[in-house]
């Protein structure tokens, strides 16, 4: 870990101003940032400690949704009565992630910004375009069991590791930020993440110093919700594949569907084609297979991760069945 300056922010506005300087990072829970700083994967020159800011409330919005402070710990969010009642997919996703200890520390905003678990990204003795742009991507020809099958580029095939963000994507979350100049911005989660393309080091649309202050959820969606995570251990392991689903069935047909996926892509993955294949259809194998076809139309395996293609197909179909069974 390289030496850095440390400052505790007194207000979100001050934090954003401080954060605009070069090589500054915000630290809240720190569970991913310090992990990476110890390996010098992250080498900020200054840490702005935002952990004491008053951004730790969960409030109802006028629209009947929730406004979640960026510093609400994952554990608190998962257990919050408004979340367990209205957004069980989010509770379930949070509870499927990490461990009790990590959930107690990890923040809502930080979780959105988790960095990939790619082995080569994590080993500074390795080339990595995300860590060291232009150095190469050893994962493509290396060991890539946990890597992405969708949205990859020649430069990077890493996945986004979050569970929470997958549920947030299915819930159409909006990320509220504060910029160094004091402006606030509302960014749909669908616009928040960037595909790797030629710049895998740039993972979100956040600008320097732009501080996530809240995440807003629309009013609880109608229908059934589910989060299913497939992993190598029964607990305390990152997703090989995960599915966040919200589906409403009316009059025997799927009236609305929101499906997001973890473990497949460089961002929590959502593809409207999947939902289009379902909406208006009678729940059943034909519609489910069509949805899986839509999801996997552009899927590409890299050897070690080829299995994710049949795995997510099977998992998606099982999830769709659970989300629709008995509703007709």
């Amino acid at each position, binding site marked *: *870990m*390289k*030496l850095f300056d440390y400052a505790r922010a007194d207000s979100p506005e001050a934090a954003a101003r401080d954060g605009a300087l070069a090589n500054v990072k915000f630290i809240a829970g720190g569970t991913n940032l310090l992990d990476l700083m*110890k390996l*010098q994967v992250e080498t900020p020159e200054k840490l702005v400690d935002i952990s004491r800011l008053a951004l730790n409330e969960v409030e109802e919005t006028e629209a009947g949704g929730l406004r979640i402070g960026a510093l609400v710990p994952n554990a608190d969010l998962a257990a919050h009565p408004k979340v367990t009642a209205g957004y069980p997919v989010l509770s379930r996703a949070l509870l499927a992630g990490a461990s009790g200890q990590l959930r107690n520390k990890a923040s809502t905003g930080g979780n959105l910004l988790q960095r990939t*678990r790619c*082995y*080569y990204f*994590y*080993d*500074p*003795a*390795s080339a990595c375009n995300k860590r060291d742009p232009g150095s190469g991507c*050893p994962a493509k*020809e*290396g*060991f890539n*069991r*946990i890597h992405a099958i969708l949205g990859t580029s020649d430069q990077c095939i890493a996945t986004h590791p979050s569970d929470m963000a997958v549920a947030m994507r299915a819930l159409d979350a909006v990320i509220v930020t504060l910029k160094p100049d004091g402006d606030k911005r509302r960014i749909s989660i669908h616009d928040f993440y960037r595909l790797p393309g030629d710049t895998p080091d740039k993972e979100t649309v956040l600008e320097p110093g732009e501080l996530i202050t809240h995440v807003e959820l629309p009013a609880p969606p109608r229908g059934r919700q589910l989060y299913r995570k*497939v*992993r*190598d*251990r*029964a*607990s*305390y*392991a*990152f997703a*090989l*594949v995960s599915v966040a689903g919200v589906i409403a069935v009316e009059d025997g047909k799927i009236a609305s569907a929101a499906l997001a996926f973890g473990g497949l892509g460089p961002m929590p993955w959502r593809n409207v084609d999947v939902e289009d294949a379902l909406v208006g259809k009678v729940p059943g194998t034909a519609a489910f297979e069509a949805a899986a076809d839509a999801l996997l139309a552009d899927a590409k395996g890299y050897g070690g991760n080829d*299995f994710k293609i*049949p*795995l997510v*197909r*099977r*998992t998606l*179909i*099982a999830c769709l*069945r659970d989300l629709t069974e008995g509703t007709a």
Partner: protein
Amino acid sequence: MSNSATLKMDAAAEHSLLDDGVQGLIGQPLDRVDGPKKVAGKAPYSAEYAFDNLAYGVLVGAPFARGRITAIDDTAAMSLPGVLAIVSDPDKFLRNSGQGGQNEAPVQNAHEVFYMHQPVALAVAETFEQARAAAAAVVVRGEPIDGEYDFEARLDTADTPDDGVIPPATSQGDIDQAMVDAAVTVDGIWTTPGQNSAAMEPHVSTAIWDDDGLTLYGAYQMVASDRMQLADALGLDPEQVRIVSAYVGGGFGSKLGISSEAVASAIAAKQLGRPVKTVMTRQQVFDATIRRSNTRQRIRLGADENGVLHAIGHESLSSNLPDEDFFEPAGIATHFLYRGEHRRITHGIVRMNRMLSGSMRAPGEAVGLLALECAMDELAEKLGLDPVELRKRNIPDIDPEKQIPYSARKQVECLEEGAKRFGWDRRNRTPGAMREGEWLIGHGVAAAARTNQLMQSEAVARLTPEGRLVVETDMTDIGTGTYTVLMQIAGEMLGLPADRVDVHLGDSRFPPAAGSGGSWGAGSSGSSVYLACRKLREQLAEKLDCDPAKLTLKDGEAIADNRRVAITDLIGDGLEAHGRIEPGKTSESHTQSGYGAHFCEVRVNAVTGEVRVARWTAVYAAGRILNEKTARSQCYGGIIFGIGAALTEALVHDPRDGRIVNHDLAEYHVPVHADIPQLDVVLLPERDPYANPLQAKGIGELGIAGAGAAVANAVYNATGVRVRDYPLTLDKLLSGLPPV
């Protein structure tokens, strides 16, 4: 009268004084004597001794996998705050870690790099944070050359290791012809990946020099030989080296020999004139200590219509660095477990630029039975025979290779008792036939066997004038319960309650013990304590002027010939005795092993292929059980290691440079709480007089032997998918699962 007792195990110990004891300690499920300290965080592990002026070391690894170091550029590192030195002494630095039990230095010469991240320097600074930053700033320059990284492509280059303690190749009869003649055969290749012991305490050394030489607080399993290795590596007389390992946070083989941080810390401490502490990072433990090798095993079984084996072959390859003689003895139990007059068991080493391979918990059986016991399951299926019955039919009368009898062997009883407790008769033999909702259910069985060994071991026992008993030996307790079982042995022998016995371990100033490895620890060190205490009994009898055989000792009193006196009245200024056990003819006259049987139920998700162990029954027989509680815990640990081996654990080497890609505990998946159900473990009563005077055999590794095979067999029963490539991760099952 001499105050030392030596026993060479040349004949069966038909009578054990432990059976005469009336103190009621031996065998009892007593709480660990070190328990209160450990649960309160007060047991000092080797990184936890406080020293004035302590400096911190962090190892620097090579950034390439093979080649010569040309320069270690410390310019940037030395400019950082608090940095004291970038220490490199390539003549003395270890290239490879040490193997267990060796008394010479491991391979040195760190001018040459033979595997990725091989330690080449030590950054030393005033604080840990400064040393860590300095280590990252060191620039290691070199001339990389091509190395060997592809195991599968190099199978033809395997060499047969030299004859050692374990013969690398044995053959009898004509197995090729016997396979042709057999009514039913299995002939397959099983592969197992490399594994890491992943003891929770990383490797650590704190080195301090004074006028007498070096004291090194380190995490070791075998203090006596580690001291020899360290002295030799540093060019010191062994008398100038003291090792302290009072509490060790797990070993499982990884701490049998010394590792690079020991030599580096010692050199740095000498150079700087102050104590230096180096704790390996978790990644370094994966990269630069020792691993269990991957293996490729061909199993051949040939049986007649009745399921009686006539041919048994086990040909295994593992990998190691050039010039290392350790091979993974995967066929070790195949030598004696089953019948077959035509036999061939061989081992070869494929030379590769991967970190050193060596002993990890039950070297040999742990991976060998993953293959053999699955082959037996396949054979049973082909024969239409119950796999328990197949095993029973193939239990030999005498060792089929050495033509000698077995010592105590409850192989049949373990299978029968386990089958009964588990409800094996209610198993559905048809694969894929049991399902509850999304979960396919399967049952599997496998046999367990772990060779029993006795090693030379010494201890001293002292009765103090206050009537306390002090036991000292450089034996270690790596979680095995040594503190507790040695207390029980000593207390039983001398009739003293637990709170009047003090056991001191893990200091090379004490008599040299066998160390913790190969499951021989309790039997060997326990026997030395037994002998020392037997001598003390004789001394007490002499003071009391009675026949030692008629002396009863209980609660600090000596009772003989209708007399009862406090032993404090007999001890005078104190009594001392030295005990020493040596292996002898019983090691050759009888094939000795612990035995067991695993029965498990798994649930395999029919959608995703995720495997969960739902239920487990294991029955073991391993001679006298010294402490029913700690022995059971060892069995749990072994089974769970086996579950990890079956389902999740695999070192992944990058095909281009051999580096261990998943070198941390997030990506190398040891089982977590949620992977493990309650386990039903039964220890059968047994005595093995050929083992040692305690009549006890090793139990620390028995649990892992065969455990993973039981899982794999249950997965087959659940799904109909045979996977011969461990671990059984879900990707290997997907294509055989029912449609969604």
